[in-house]
């Protein structure tokens, strides 16, 4: 300090006195760019791959083929020998049927469990155990759920390999933890003052849940469920494990029909020898699946945004 004494004369006459020095920002700037590049890397890589697959699916570089992704592709049965005749119809129908079954199973169960954990359970050991267990289940590999489906639903309960019901049950168990966790978050976001108001009016717990908590958290619950369904329609490994067939011609007509689904169909096409399958049909299937997924996610985001505007 003492060495500063001369300098520290309030030299008010010279406005151009040097500043207090500069601290080098080289690292700062470099690091900023580094982190920014890192943040973009995955996204850019994915964008490049998506561009590739889109170019292939639309046959942009080989216009003589015509786009692989066309009406015929969406409405025809699959083919495993003629890429030009190959279609995605049974897979699309299978995926939709599967999604309906999964939604019907997971929505009530997931919301029920979330209601219990948020509204009824007290913060005891059991609750914390259940909570921890749900978090863990969310991280169990999907192929293990496939084994569960195989061992429990196919072998033990004999519900048939590769059927709509078994696939629905198996993938439901897989996404249930995700549905529960997101429903819990939605329920937790309902302000306590709303519950207090309802209880203060002499409402029972169930009346409070039904009239106050659920209406208010429903957009959040729906968003979470739809996103989880998005995850569900992309799952392949569980379908393989429960013996979903390689090819299906026709549409499922009961819960016990054997089904295929979009990712499964992509997987089985991917090993056709012809290059047209590799770079055409499979690409078209992948693009279709991604478009469906994107649509689902957009719906979820739309719901979320509308809901956020209201509160």
């Amino acid at each position, binding site marked *: 300090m003492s060495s500063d004494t001369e300098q520290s004369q309030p030299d008010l006459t010279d406005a151009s006195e040097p500043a207090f020095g500069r601290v080098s920002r080289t690292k700062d700037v470099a690091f900023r760019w580094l982190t920014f590049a890192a943040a973009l890397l995955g996204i850019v890589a994915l964008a490049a791959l998506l561009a590739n697959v889109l170019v292939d699916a639309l046959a942009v570089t080989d216009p003589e083929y015509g786009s692989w992704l066309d009406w015929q592709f969406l409405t025809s049965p699959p083919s495993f020998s003629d890429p030009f005749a190959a279609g995605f119809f049974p897979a699309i129908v299978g995926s939709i049927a599967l999604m309906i079954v999964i939604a019907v199973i997971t929505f009530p169960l997931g919301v029920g469990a979330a209601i219990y954990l948020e509204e009824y359970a007290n913060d005891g050991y059991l609750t914390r155990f259940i909570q921890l267990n749900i978090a863990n289940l969310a991280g169990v590999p999907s192929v293990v759920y496939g084994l569960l489906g195989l061992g429990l639903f196919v072998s033990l309960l004999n519900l048939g390999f590769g059927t709509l019901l078994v696939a629905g049950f198996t993938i439901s168990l897989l996404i249930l933890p995700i549905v529960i966790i997101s429903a819990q978050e939605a329920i937790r976001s309902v302000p306590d003052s709303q519950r*207090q108001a309802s209880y203060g009016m002499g409402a029972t717990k169930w009346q409070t849940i039904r009239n106050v908590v659920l209406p208010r958290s429903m957009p959040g619950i729906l968003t979470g469920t739809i996103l989880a369904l998005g995850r569900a329609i992309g799952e392949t490994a569980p379908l393989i494990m429960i013996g979903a067939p390689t090819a299906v011609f026709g549409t499922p007509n009961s819960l016990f029909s054997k089904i295929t689904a979009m990712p499964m169909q992509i997987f089985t096409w991917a090993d056709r020898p012809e290059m047209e399958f590799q770079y055409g049909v499979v690409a078209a299937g992948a693009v279709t699946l991604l478009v469906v997924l994107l649509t689902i996610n957009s719906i979820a985001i739309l719901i979320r945004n509308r809901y956020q505007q209201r509160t």
Partner: protein
Amino acid sequence: MTQDAMTSPEAEQTDEQRTGTGPTPGTDGLADRTAESEAETVVDRTIIEARDLDVYYGDDQALQGIDMEIPEKQVTALIGPSGCGKSTFLRSINRMNDLIDIARVEGDLYFRGKNVYDEDVDPVALRRKIGMVFQSPNPFPKSIRENVAYGLKVQGKDENVDEKVRTALERAALLDEVEDQLDESGLDLSGGQQQRLCIARAIAPDPEVILMDEPASALDPVATSKIEDLIEDLSEEYTVVIVTHNMQQAARISDKTAVFLTGGELVEFDDTNKIFENPENDRVEDYITGKFG
């Protein structure tokens, strides 16, 4: 529950000497007012009575041996510094403390002579008799009509809902302002209107007591004065128990005032004029004159 507290309330009433219930020397405006209407109503009939009431949150005691008698169809104000347990006491009247996991109540609280902490009391039924209004307005994200009708709906009072909704809004001095927008969201109202909406919601199912926890603290002066007028009107039909941190407000609107001090004690409970003009307890005097709090 202590054995003592198990004796019936009336028996105790004569046995026990209680702070601030002795005869008050100074005559006050309130006594005048009640005297005027003596012909119709029984003066100072007790509707709620606490006997040696303790409330704990986990290991922390928030209320210590509260004894208090709240008279029917009057406004009773609870005042005291922050954290002294006013809200806790209010919530123990309609058992809203049940909703707090760690809260535990010991001692007795009688509503019309019935201990609300008896085994056979259903808190839901209790709360239908004792309505509640909260600190910040908390209307449901529903229409104004649905907000007011909510209590009627959950309590199964399904006839003449529309009429009852209008009456409640009228009594809450809100009808004129919202008559044309009953089907619009309650959230679109101003803060003061929202709070009156909450009051309308609370009175629509016609409870006997209305508990209010700092109902005007989130409001501007104009809205506050509307709420204060309303509270005075309400006391003609309802028993009102109100928590406030605003001493002027307590002095303006209440008939009786209870002063809680830090630690969860009820230090003095008496006619409002007595408390503000001539408190018995020095700490109450200090508090009222703003020496602390």
